């Protein structure tokens, strides 16, 4: 029932507090939100339909554009599904390189998330640091793959090419540069009392609620559940690598950002272990002529742990040179469409951007 004091507010992409092409319609009373409705669709490009018109290999430049911030996990999940349907093996060295690339992109994505969150709450200095450090990682990607944002590097049967000479030292150098700034980040942002007051008890979600609403990734781990696909269903080389799954108990925005912070440190450990253990050898297995490549009939569901949570792909082949049906399960989908709506109820207008960014919603991933 609408009361007389109720107003409808449109919180859209043109709003300063909104990051990304996404909008929320808010029903407010005073500055309290009564109900919120998420409206995605600003970036709907129909990729899943377009992919049905293109050959298996031609789809790679499309897949990475689904998630602008972390394209590598998209490539990985598509390559994994194609490999599973076609029965292609991946050499061990390629798997190590994949792990390194995935973790570097997780770092880049988390730093981007920190930029968005710090910027939102007015910690401009921290935001600049995070953006600068992300740029250093993009430089690494440029050297490795030729592209800064979209890499198209992970390929069915391996990776496109071997790592260049001296790349390892450059990566370690960059990671040391970023790692040496952790105390500064902590002092200025993560342990900052202003940030604590702004983020504590905001957007709180319990473990049961998170499970019921289909949460994964940092949002689920911030409620205390140790659920990480890298551990429970390992892909690439994650079963050979020793790492922790950071969790927090409270389930609020502050816990979520701390899970992200701890994950970044774990990513650095994973990359260092990969470089240590990486054997010599081939980096790709040859695939058939891509113009005539037909994949046998079948279907599969594969998933990876992207920086935001479970990223899955349901892929159906009917024995042709093109996929019959592609459907991505992106982690932001339940986070942005259900959990966000639930958390915004009874919150204040000033916290809308705060809650949304703490949920780590990336609009292009929802729309596809």
């Amino acid at each position: 029932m609408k009361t007389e004091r109720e107003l409808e507010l449109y919180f859209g992409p043109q709003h300063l507090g909104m990051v990304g092409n996404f909008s929320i319609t808010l029903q407010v009373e005073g500055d309290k939100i009564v109900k919120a409705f998420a409206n995605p669709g600003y970036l709907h490009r129909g990729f899943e339909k377009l992919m049905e018109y293109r050959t298996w290999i031609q789809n790679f430049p499309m897949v990475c554009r689904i998630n602008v911030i972390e394209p590598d996990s998209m490539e990985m999940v598509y390559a994994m599904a194609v490999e599973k349907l076609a029965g292609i093996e991946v050499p061990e060295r390629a798997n190590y390189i994949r792990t390194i690339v995935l973790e570097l992109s997780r770092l880049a994505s988390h730093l981007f998330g920190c930029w968005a969150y710090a910027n939102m709450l007015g910690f401009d200095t921290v935001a600049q640091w995070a953006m600068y450090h992300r740029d250093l990682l993009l430089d690494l990607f440029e050297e490795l793959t030729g592209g800064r944002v979209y890499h198209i590097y992970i390929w069915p049967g391996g990776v496109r090419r071997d790592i260049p000479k001296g790349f390892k030292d450059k990566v370690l150098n960059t990671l040391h540069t970023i790692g040496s700034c952790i105390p500064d980040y902590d002092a200025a942002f993560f342990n900052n009392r202003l940030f604590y007051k702004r983020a504590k008890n905001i957007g709180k979600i319990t473990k049961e609620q998170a499970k019921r609403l289909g949460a994964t990734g940092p949002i689920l781990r911030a409620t205390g559940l140790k659920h990480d696909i890298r551990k429970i269903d390992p892909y690439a080389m994650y079963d050979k690598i020793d790492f922790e799954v950071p969790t927090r108990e409270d389930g609020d925005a502050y816990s979520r950002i701390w899970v992200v912070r701890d994950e970044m440190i774990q990513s650095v450990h994973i990359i260092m272990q990969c470089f240590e253990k990486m054997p010599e050898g081939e980096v790709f297995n040859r695939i058939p002529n891509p113009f005539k490549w037909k994949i046998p009939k079948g279907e599969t569901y594969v998933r990876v742990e992207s920086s935001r949570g479970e990223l899955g792909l349901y892929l159906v082949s009917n024995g042709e040179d093109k996929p019959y049906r592609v459907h991505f399960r992106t982690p932001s989908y339940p986070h942005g469409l259900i959990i966000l709506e639930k958390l915004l109820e009874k919150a204040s207008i000033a916290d809308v951007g705060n809650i949304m960014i703490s949920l780590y919603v990336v609009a292009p991933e929802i729309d596809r």
Partner: protein
Amino acid sequence: MATSLPDRGKGKYIEGKVKKMDKLIKEITLAFKGVKETTIEADKLIINAKKDDVLDILNFFKERGYDHLSLISCVDWIESGQFELIYILSSYSEQNGKKHIILKTKIPRKNPKFKTVIQIFENAEPYEREIHELFGINFEGHPRLTHLFLERNYKIPPFRKDFNTREYVKEFFEKIPFVEDKK
């Protein structure tokens, strides 16, 4: 280096798991008649069910710890004149975390409708909305079957196989005159 890691007891673990999956298969074939199951990998089970059984089977798996609905998808099998709805379930618990249940059911392509599963899995809401919009399937009992991504109605819902993207683009965008032509 790999030997220095704590041994996760791989062989034993997997053996136990496969047996558990067998138990599940036995239980489900006993409980529901007309269920066809295939195992594509050690941890992935595909179940073809009749459309009337779907809600009960989802409840059956939810009671047995498959409490995470990963995805609801739809495939348009135009040649046989059917839509196939796919429910992918997995678990939040550690021992079942690796397993997947892919539950599939077929509904006729003409006047397609199905029951909503929101009362079992709350996060089904946007998935069903998306399938309604892109495939034109009506979910009975769904509280808001409004537009999710698109802004207008299409004659043929755009993700169906008989919707031709190229023809649509030609038809729709060639009607819009160039800026120069307007003068």
